[in-house]
Every structure is written in structure tokens, then in C-alpha cells.
């Protein structure tokens, strides 16, 4: 089964016809030849062994499986591979650039958010999406994060969202300063 899913070099035009499904995951292109109704979550985990996205319910209720599809947070347990042809997927493994963590990941470490840690990949992916949609999320906006945490890390998630905003602002200021210095 996994042999058919070898990486290929570049993404050809999105296919609409049944057949292999090609999609980009964390910058690499993959071809899926297995069951077209297989949810992305199981493709990521069982086929690609990208196990950062977690199974918590399989029916869209918990958010442990959250990934980004074309930049938007989606619950990968609900997405059949057949709907993803030509799409660009980012998982928790793909949001850092090399050794540089995403500000949200760093904030999660700074605020020591994880307890068991199982829900946190999904929490982080949902938060990255939230911060794309709302540059300055209010407390009420943060309350709209619907990912479940059985360990009860919600208060630290709240703090970490704010910490991430701060880190992003600092990074932006540093960038601007550097640009200014250049010109």
C-alpha cells in the first residue's frame, strides 16, 4: 500500500477525474492511489507517518486532527482524499521554518501549555488560523477556539495566544528595523 504513495517531484495540474490524487503536504507533492474516501487524517498518519495530527473523535468534534488546507484550519478526519486533489496542506510538522519555530509554537513553549500534549498540535493549528483571520483577537474571539482539551489547558492557551501576538509584533518590529537600517 505505501509504495504507491511515493513522493513525486512537482505537482501537475489538479486532476478532477478519478485516479491518483496528487496534493502538496508541507511543501512536498504526494500521490495517493488508495481508497479515495480515506480521510486525510489517516493518509497523514497511516500512509505518510506524519503522526503529529491526532485522532480524537473522527467526526469533527474535537479538533485534535486540525491541519491547514490552502491556509485555512480544517479537521482532517472529515476530509476525504478525493476532495483534496491539487490542494496544499500544512500540518503541525510543517509550520516551523527549519529550526525556527512558528511564533505560536514558541508561545506554547514559553507559557508551558501542554499537559498530556495530545490536543496541542490541533490547538496550535487552530490558533495559527485564528491569528490569520484576526490580527488582534479579543477574549471573545479566543473563546471561539472549539478544540477540546481533556487536560484543561485552556487558561494557558489563552495566555499563549497573547504571547504569540507579542512575539509576532516583536518579530515584525525587528524586521522593520532591519529594513530601515538597510535603506
Amino acid at each position, binding site marked *: *500500500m505505501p509504495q504507491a504513495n511515493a513522493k513525486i517531484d512537482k505537482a501537475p495540474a489538479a486532476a478532477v477525474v478519478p485516479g491518483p490524487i496528487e496534493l502538496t503536504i508541507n511543501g512536498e507533492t504526494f500521490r495517493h492511489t*488508495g*481508497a479515495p*474516501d*480515506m*480521510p486525510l487524517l*489517516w493518509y497523514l*498518519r*497511516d*500512509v505518510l*507517518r*506524519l*503522526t*503529529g*495530527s*491526532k*485522532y*480524537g*473523535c*473522527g*467526526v469533527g*468534534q*474535537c479538533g*485534535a486532527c486540525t491541519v491547514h488546507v490552502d491556509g485555512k484550519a480544517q479537521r482532517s478526519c472529515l476530509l476525504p482524499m478525493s476532495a483534496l486533489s491539487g490542494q496544499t496542506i500544512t*500540518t*503541525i*510538522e510543517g509550520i*516551523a521554518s527549519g529550526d525556527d*519555530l512558528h511564533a505560536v*509554537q514558541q508561545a*506554547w*513553549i514559553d507559557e*508551558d*501549555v*501542554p*499537559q*498530556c*500534549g*495530545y*490536543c*496541542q*498540535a490541533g490547538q*496550535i493549528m487552530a490558533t495559527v488560523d485564528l491569528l490569520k483571520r484576526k490580527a488582534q483577537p479579543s*477574549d471573545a474571539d479566543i*473563546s*471561539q*477556539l*472549539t*478544540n*477540546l*482539551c*481533556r*487536560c*484543561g*489547558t*485552556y*487558561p*494557558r*492557551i*489563552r495566555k499563549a495566544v497573547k504571547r504569540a501576538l507579542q512575539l509576532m509584533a516583536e518579530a515584525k518590529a525587528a524586521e522593520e528595523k532591519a529594513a530601515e537600517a538597510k535603506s
Partner: protein
Amino acid sequence: MTNLNRRQFISVMLTASGALLVGLRPAVAAFQPKVPIDLLGEALTSLGAFVRIERNNRIVIGARGCEIGQGVITSLPMLIAEELDADWNRVRVEQLPYGYEIGPDGETNRYGPQGAGGSTSITDGWKDLRQAGAVARWLLVEAAAQHWQLPHDRLATEASHVVHPDGTRMPYAELAERAAGILPPPEPVALKKPEQYRVIGKPAKTVDARAIVTGRASFGIDAYMGGALTAVMLRCPHMDGSVDTIDDTQARKIPGVRDVFVIDGPVPGSAFDTNLAAGVAVVADDTWAALKGRSALKVTWKPGPWAQESSAALEAKAAEALKGDGVSVRSDGDMAAARKAAKRTLEARYQVPFLAHATMEPPHALIKIEPDRALFIGSLQSPGGASTVIANLTGLSRDKIEIRMTRAGGGFGRRLENDYVAEAVMIAKKAGKPIKLMWTRDDDLRHDFYRPYGLHQLSATLDRKNQLTGFAHLCAATSMNYRIARKKERPPGQGCLEADDFPAGLVPNLDKRFFSLESGMPRGPWRAPLHTFHAFAVQSFIDEIAYETKQDAVELRLKLLGEARELDYQGHGGPKFDTGRLAAVLTRCAEAIEWKRRRSDGRGVGIACHFTFGGYAAHAFEVSMDGRDLRIHRAICVADIGRVVNPLGVDAMMAGGTIDGISTALNLAITVKDGQVQQSSFGDYAIGRMAQMPHEIEVIVLPSEREPSGAGEMGIPSVAPALANAIYAATTVRVRRLPLLAELNRRL
């Protein structure tokens, strides 16, 4: 060395020095085949079972516990690092495997206790892991003493260096090889004084946080194995039911499905020491194929002996049972006489439902069985139990069973049971292949060892001055002492009623009795087992007594607790219960919530306190109703758990326990109808989400010089009663049944 096996510690040293003598390195292989590569290194730099020193002076410390979110992967190595005087910022922690072995004295565990239950990891580690660190440090200092030709006690240590009297610092790495050839001292090494602590008591972040936030941390469910097939089970929904007919024609047509077969359940009524339920296993190439195969199965069931059981019937049975005599759990003075003499008697009944654990990572197991050995990888709380289960089902000796421990996505008591381990072994034996068993969320909610159901009847007798003269606590419940092999040795009210809990010893006349209810529901420990179960009733009732007698609810509790003193406490967490410590957390909690301040705007404040497993906690909430929802404006948790090892970790446990408590008290119940569990998803078993939770839990940990207790379970029992008391203060509706929200909305 107290709990750790000194012979084991020494044998490692001897092998190491032996290796030095013969110039070979058999030590690496002989050292410990189960030790992960990362911790193995060269035997010459390994000091005992927990410590390895790399050439760059980085210290690698083995974490022996089951990490289920309670932070032991960080806090237990801190104990070792402290006594070793390691530079914590440069320590790397590695998870250890299960350390069972058969030594010259019989069965032993080279790492000491490894399970996670009863909040004992820190108390155990406090005894033996500090000593393990201290011995490693002693060896390094001894090596330096030999090198510098100085007496041992003229040398000091700091941040992974031995310090010469002239200030010269030698890295541990340069001494490790010599140290590994020295025999440890025969007597326990003196431990540091608290004022010397550099690691204990300082906030430490989760050691593997980076792996978690990058998705690289490996949970049990993330383990795969070449050649393994994935299995899911369709389990009989009826308790103790069995398979009647199967039509697997469609299931077998699903591409990727390899096999379908029946797995028998335990004999009804027998001890639960294998799997939990009968069912049909679908074995496939991957999870999705297995799940599709399962959906395509057509199976009919024989409902078994509990087909009539329902929550309603159980409630009626409980009420009926309370009319009997029950079994006495504790009796002080003469409660019957107190009733006769009473000016007034108050009575109330409280009900607590079955609960599921709903660990975020559902049960799962990966097992490979070979003729002469087995390998298991998965999330556990009781690796010893898992090892026993595998041995029983395979006939292998336990030392031939390798168990790799992983980070677990929550535990809450669910993984103290190893039914899913047994199930995986049974499937793997039939399939003749390594098996990765997956449970779905509905499997998990419908097949659990539930927190018991119970009906509590409380009575208080009062004299003409409204003084409490007697207290009766009758509890009818589905005991946790059920279908276990050692049933006879256990107290009848196990997991439901503790003899010495509040207010035992604080009132002259006391009558505590237990009434066992028959039920087909499997039961087991659920975070702070009996304490979440009965503190709701007791601490709500105390509040009722206060209102009825027009006393302040905090002052009434303080008056009952009386002067600070130690009372005998036989249960887990004893041998003593200190009334002063409970009074102190309560008083601090009342201050923090501004207990005396009058509230307007429909807000109410409630408070409660409880002693759990050696730790003391109080909660207070300020709440108001917002339509059908409860708004929690403030949430305070005050705890005294003795000396704190990792303040960040304790804060997480208390805040997390409080949120677990809120979520559970407000929303959660497992109910039964026609002998089947009715809940099957986060839709009908609605773990609280961010929007329902207070933005902050104000955690206050009282400073203490006492021996540490754990922290995993103390932060939950007083939540439900404090919330119920707050709801009463806000609405004048006394909710005596959990979950609170459903009942409150029914009554409002």
C-alpha cells in the same frame, strides 16, 4: 539506597569496571538490553540506571514514570538532577522503558515504581530518586577526590562540575569514566538540605515541549511496526452480551481488509483480567480499511444478563437499598441516640452519575508476539499490569516481554486497566501477525471502566444551639470492588466511601454505611476516585447545614475542623489527616474570593474543601446564570501539597484539575438503557470547551516544608461542591444531582 535495588546499581558498576579490565565492551550489551539507545551510551559513562554523562558534559536522565500529562517526565528527573547537582538547563531527559527483570532475589524492577495512580509518583521518587542522584554525585566526587588526591569532603559540586577548594572546576564528563569504576557507598548518601536546592522548587517547563509543539512527540498511538496489521473491534453493546450471528461478506470485500473473526468476552461475572467485551475484530492494512470493514459488518448480539439494566432502574434500586442496613464503614459514638436527642435533623440526598474517562488519546495497543518474546508499545498507566496481562495470555515469562513506554494522551485512571492490551494480544494471536489495535471515540465511551454511580443520603443532627451532634453518611453505589480477583481483601465501599474522610473524627456521633448495588457496568478508578465521588455530597451538605442554621459556611467548616491537630487516616494518603492544613487552605481560599463581600447582579459565591491522597485543597467560585448557561466569573484553587518540586507543573495540575472538575460537574454523565451505554461521542458526552471555562484559574499553592504529596488528583474533588454551593448562592436552587447544568435547567 532505599527502594532502589543496590545490587542492581552495583552490578552495573561492576560490569562497567569489568569492561575496563578486559578491554572489551560486553557491558554495553549486558548493561540493559531494554534501555533505549539514547540512554545506553557507553557503560563507562552510565552511573546507575538513571544517569548518563556525555562527553560534552550534557547529562542524560532517564524518566521512569508513565507520562500521562501529570508532568512526571519533568518532575521525576528534577529530583535526580537536584541531588546530582546537574545543570538543569543542559539536562536531556529520555523516557525509560518498563524495567521488569528477574534478578537473584526474584522479580524486581530496575527503575523502581513506574505506574501512575493515586498521585504517588512524586512521593515515591522523593524516597528513591533523590538517592539515585546523590549516589551518582557521590561517585563523581569520589572520582575527583582520587584524581586530585584530596579528601572527598573537601570537594563541592555545582552545575555538573566538581569544584576544587581552589575554585578549579572539573566537568562531570571528565570524571564519568573513573566514577563508573568505583563501587557505590554501602550506606545511603546524605541528601541536600532544602536551602541547598537549585532545581527543586524552581519552575521547570515540560522537558519535551518542543517535540510536542512540532508534532514530533511520540504518543503510544503514533507507534507503527513493519508487518503489523491494524485492527478495530465491533464490540457487543450489551454488557456481558455475546455475538449471535455474523455476516461479514461485505466487510471482507473492502479493499485492505485481511480478516474478520470473533473475540470472546470474559465469562459474565468473572474477574476482569483480560478484555472487556465480546466482539468481532476486523484486521486490515490500515485504520481506514479496518473502519470501513467494521461498518460493513452485519452482526446480531445476544444481550446477556444485564439486558434490563437502566439508569432509572438503578436509581430506584439505590433508594430501595438505603432502607436496609448496609455495611458499616465507620461508626463513632451512638448515632441512633443522637437522632433521638436531636432538636432538629437535616437530611438530603445527592446523586453522582457514572463517568467515562474519555482520554483524549483513545485506548490503543501495538503488539508483536514471537514464540520466545513479545514487544508492546502503547500508552499506559500500569506497565506492570500490562506485562502481567501479556504474560498470562501468551504464556511468556514476563522478562521476555519488552514494554516501551510512551507519552500518553491522558490517563485519568482509564489506563490503570489493561483490557485493551489483552484485546490486542487476543487479536494478534488469532491473526498470527503483529497488531496495532485502534479504539474509536465511541468504542471508548461505550466500553470503559466507569466511575461508579452512587446515591448518598446524608443526615445531620443538631442540638438546640444548632451545634452539630451527629453525622450520617449512607452511600448506595456500584462499588469499584467488583469483578476483581482480590475482591475479598478489599473494603466493601472501595472507591466510594472512605472511613476517615471529613467529618470523621470531628463530630461525636458518626455513622457511615455502604450499600452495594448490583450492576453490569464495569467500574474502575477515575481521577481522585472516591473523592470526586463523595466530596460533592459531603461538602454540599455542609453548605446546606450552614444555611439552615444561619451560620457562615466557612466558619462552620472551621469550627468543625477545630484546633490544628492530626487525626488518624487509614485510607490512601494517610496515615494522618491534619485539620490545620485543611483549615488553612479553606481560609486562604475564602480570603482570595473575598468571601465576606456581598454580591449583587445575581452573582453568588460558593466554597468547598477536601483532603485527597495526602494533599489539601479548597475551591471557590463566583458565578451567575446567563440564560441556560453558567458564567464563572472567578475560580480559585488553593492547595497545600507539601513541598513543591515543580511549581509550574503543580500550577498546571491544579488549574487542569479545576477545569476537569468544572467540565465534569457541569456537563458529564454516562447513562444506561436496556443494558447499553447511551453516550457515544463528544456530542452527548460534552467535555467543556474554552467558551465554557473561566479565563483564568487563580491557583494559590501554600508554601510548605513538609514532604511532598502528589498533585494530579487533589485539584478536583472540591470543585463540584464549590460550584453547586455557588449556584445555590446565585439562584437559591440547591442542585443535588450531577451533572449540575442539566439538573439546574430542569429546576429553574
